[in-house]
């Protein structure tokens, strides 16, 4: 499984958002997309699954261009966990996860035993089995997040896209979610692409990072090659120390200060 994005560009009528984005990701890999607000992270995630149609460039999965696929076909390959999902209707957890089977069912086909088994497996992986009959409208933010991940997994995607899945969560749940998606990538051989604001979590759990700055790829590669003191200064305008932390066997960032000249530049 290989996802390849080549010179992808996207503009709204009034503003260019993404320019000439190229990267690739392989099965079993977790790719983190990082970058400041407005750098185009969410737009990129939308373009990847053709929720927005890029004006230029191509997206291929195993060499086949996805740009002309139907929504149904895309949904059989791409599972999406949106930013802070909220479901206000009292569907039960099992109902919501079963909705992930939608793209695999024909128009007049009922869900069968196999669909149920797949949904259960997804619930087991995300530890929401115990919540099966609870209305999602009554769950906590972290629980809803896991239910929505289970729904995406029930789609049996080859690519799992997550838009800041940890932003609403407590630190323990943040770790849990990152841990979960990495083990999913390893176990199922799927590609996981995850937008995150948390540089330290990204460095720790992602195999590769894609640093976006102003709609372009600033750097793409292994975490310690992407998140450097220099790139943090250039892209985020902060003075930071990046050092290896032996306890968690990962590089970690400590922000020392905001560089005021950058602040003035953005005002």
């Amino acid at each position, binding site marked *: 499984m290989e996802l390849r994005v080549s010179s992808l560009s996207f503009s709204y009528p009034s503003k260019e958002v993404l320019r000439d984005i190229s990267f690739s990701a392989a099965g079993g890999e977790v790719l983190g997309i990082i970058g400041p607000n407005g750098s185009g992270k969410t737009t990129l995630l939308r373009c990847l699954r053709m*929720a927005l149609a890029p004006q230029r460039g191509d997206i291929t999965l195993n060499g086949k261009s996805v740009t002309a696929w139907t*929504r149904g076909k895309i949904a059989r390959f791409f599972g*999406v966990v*949106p930013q802070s999902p909220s*479901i206000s*209707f*009292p*569907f039960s957890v*099992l109902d919501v996860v079963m909705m992930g089977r939608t793209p695999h069912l024909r128009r007049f086909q009922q869900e069968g035993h196999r669909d149920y088994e797949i949904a259960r497996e997804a*619930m087991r992986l995300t530890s929401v089995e115990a919540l099966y009959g609870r209305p999602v409208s009554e769950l906590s933010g972290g629980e809803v997040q896991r239910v929505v991940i289970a729904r995406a997994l029930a789609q049996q995607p080859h690519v799992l896209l997550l838009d800041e899945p940890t932003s609403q969560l407590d630190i323990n749940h943040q770790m849990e979610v990152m841990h979960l998606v990495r083990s999913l990538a390893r176990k199922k051989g799927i590609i996981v692409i995850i937008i995150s604001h948390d540089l330290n979590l990204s460095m720790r759990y992602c195999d590769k990072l894609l640093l976006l700055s102003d709609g372009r790829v600033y750097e793409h590669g292994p975490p310690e090659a992407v998140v450097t003191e220099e790139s943090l200064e250039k892209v985020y305008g902060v003075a930071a120390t990046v050092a290896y932390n032996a306890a968690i066997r990962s590089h970690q960032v400590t922000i020392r200060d905001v560089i005021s000249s950058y602040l003035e530049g953005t005002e």
Partner: protein
Amino acid sequence: MDAISSYYHSKRLRRVAVLGGLSALLFFTVIIGIMVGPVQVGPGLIMKVIYSRLPFLGNDVVQTWPQYYTSIVIDVRLPRVVLAMLVGMGLAVSGCAMQGLFRNPMASPYVCGISSGGAFGAALAVNIGLSYYFVPFGAFFFAALTVFVVYMIARVNGKVPITTLLLSGIAISSFFSALVSLMLYVSNERLERIVFWMMGGLWSAGWDKVAITLPFIVISVPVFTYLARDLNALLMGEESAADLGIEVEATKRFILALTALTVGACVAVSGVIGFVGLIIPHVTRLFVGPDHKVLIPASALVGGIFLIVTDLFARMVIRPSELPVGIITSLFGVPFFLSLLRRRRTEMGW
């Protein structure tokens, strides 16, 4: 079998039980609707009369009752009850689909100006002196046309945002209401017919009206039920629905068109009967939950039951005259709905 598995299977059983129970209730309501009137007809006799009129099966039934019972049952009450059932079903099922599509509890079958468009069509037909038979077609045509116009106005770059659709619907609706008022103002002697039509009623029911409405309801209820999965996905939000493989804009268009035809067919034969399409889906949702697989057919059944019962009141309250059923649906439906709303608001999910 563990807890989740038995939960999953019991859900399916409950769906069958709910729909079976409501179907039985609808059947009894139909019988009661035929029984009650200035002349009481017993349930046994009703069954016999209907059976004797069935093709093939009824041929060898010997008629042991006076002929006027046959006319009361077959020519008067049965078409009226059937028409009430069909209109109730059509309005409820369309309201249910609209609320799901718009993710808005205020949506009813009359959003997008269907009712005012239909009223204008009917008023126009009456005013230019078309015969009685053409009024339903005028109503139907303009109801459907209005939705089409609203949809085209709301369209931006191939997409139709729900809020734009609602707003342009409200605007076009006011426009047609003004036209209807204008017609009422200039239409002296025909005023009564138009006003009666706008209040909503079933007194002109007959097999000709049933024939207009029946095909639409027979098609739309199962089709809406088959769209349950799409409507469920749409409740997750349009972007999530698209991520689940739903072609959102095409689905929107299809549901809107189906609603326009269904409601057009109801409005054409019964005028504007308020609140059925707004309230019945809400009440049903309180009892069966938000899953459209159950909600759509259950709403249809409850809508059918509700309109038969309210029409019964409309016929009986001020005998020998009768009230427009639209008045009854609002007078009785609204307080009932509001009391439910106050007690169980948190369970509704809006």
